[in-house]
């Protein structure tokens, strides 16, 4: 400690100021995580030629303008929709009016029966968005549960906990999210 030529500016409060700024920023930033139900739209079709689907492979879900459900021609309820979808898609008893199954060899899983079932969701123009999301949610839940069950059976863990993308792909190949959002042309007819 010799002679002081210039008094040093005390910088210890700088840290405090910077911390205050940091805290202010952390508080004001809204960390709203966007969540939602992800879907893939089908590419537009040029002509009106209908793709021929075997009627037994289609699980029809209709939502009318009064937010009521028609499942496979019968009035349905939201509470039972998930289990009905699962029963339809898996067709455990190989019933003749439920979807066909095809034996396929899938990596990591081996020979499995893959269901050809497709859920066709139709809605009226007057259906409320909230109801539509509820129906979508139930259908997603059905597929998610089926994936979970398969993942537990084959890999011993739930689908979301699978870390290996190859395993996830294998599950996806057996249980694709087969939800078709019908062409709006069809809506006019059912209205």
């Amino acid at each position, binding site marked *: 400690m010799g002679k002081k030529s210039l008094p040093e500016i005390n*910088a*210890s409060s*700088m*840290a405090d*100021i*910077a*911390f205050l*700024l*940091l805290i202010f*920023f*952390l508080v004001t*930033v809204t*960390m709203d*995580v*966007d*969540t*939602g*139900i*992800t*879907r*893939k*739209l*089908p*590419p*537009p079709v040029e002509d009106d030629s209908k793709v021929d689907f075997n009627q037994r492979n289609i699980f029809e879900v209709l*939502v009318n303008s009064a937010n009521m459900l028609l499942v496979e021609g019968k009035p349905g309820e939201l509470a039972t929709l998930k289990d009905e979808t699962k029963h339809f898609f898996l067709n455990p008893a190989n019933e003749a009016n439920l979807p066909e199954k095809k034996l396929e060899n899938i990596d990591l899983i081996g020979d499995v029966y893959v269901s050809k079932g497709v859920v066709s969701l139709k*809605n*009226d*123009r*007057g*259906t*409320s*968005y*909230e109801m*539509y*999301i*509820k129906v*979508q*949610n139930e259908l*997603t*839940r059905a597929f*998610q549960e089926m994936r979970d069950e398969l993942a537990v059976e084959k890999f011993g863990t739930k689908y979301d906990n699978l870390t290996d993308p190859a395993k996830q792909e294998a599950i996806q190949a057996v249980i694709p999210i087969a939800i078709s*959002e019908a062409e*709006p042309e069809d*809506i006019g007819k059912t209205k």
Partner: protein
Amino acid sequence: MGRFKEKQEKGIPAISTASLPDIVFILLCFFMVSTTMRETTLIVKVRLPEATEVQKLEKKALVSFIYVGQPMKTTFGTESRIQLNDQFATIDDIQDFIATEREARDETDRKFMTTSIKADRDTRMGIITDIKQELRKSGAFKINYSSRKLAKTVN
């Protein structure tokens, strides 16, 4: 002994805190850069529906938003309207909107783009169906029905 005494007199040298502000500033900068500040003022009322099977929207920079709901100001009526960016829009504007959004992204990122539909829960499906048709025409196939996460009920 003499040597030992000398050391004691010096004491522990104080740790220099001069670099602390710099560290904190780096933290601050990191936060400022990593958080995306989306400045869209909502002009339509959006109360999101609720769902349990929601997925997180990844890569926010690649998401374009379409808002649907009743206008905030009653002078614009109570009919559900579409909001793109900061203004009201019609169904016909959606294709242009998607094209502009696509232009703004890197070519390699374009196939990962998602369109998030943020619609009010009381919206009628007619308008949503129209939007979906427009999105299909513009080739924006990945969509996300924005909804709030609800805790799963055990059945």
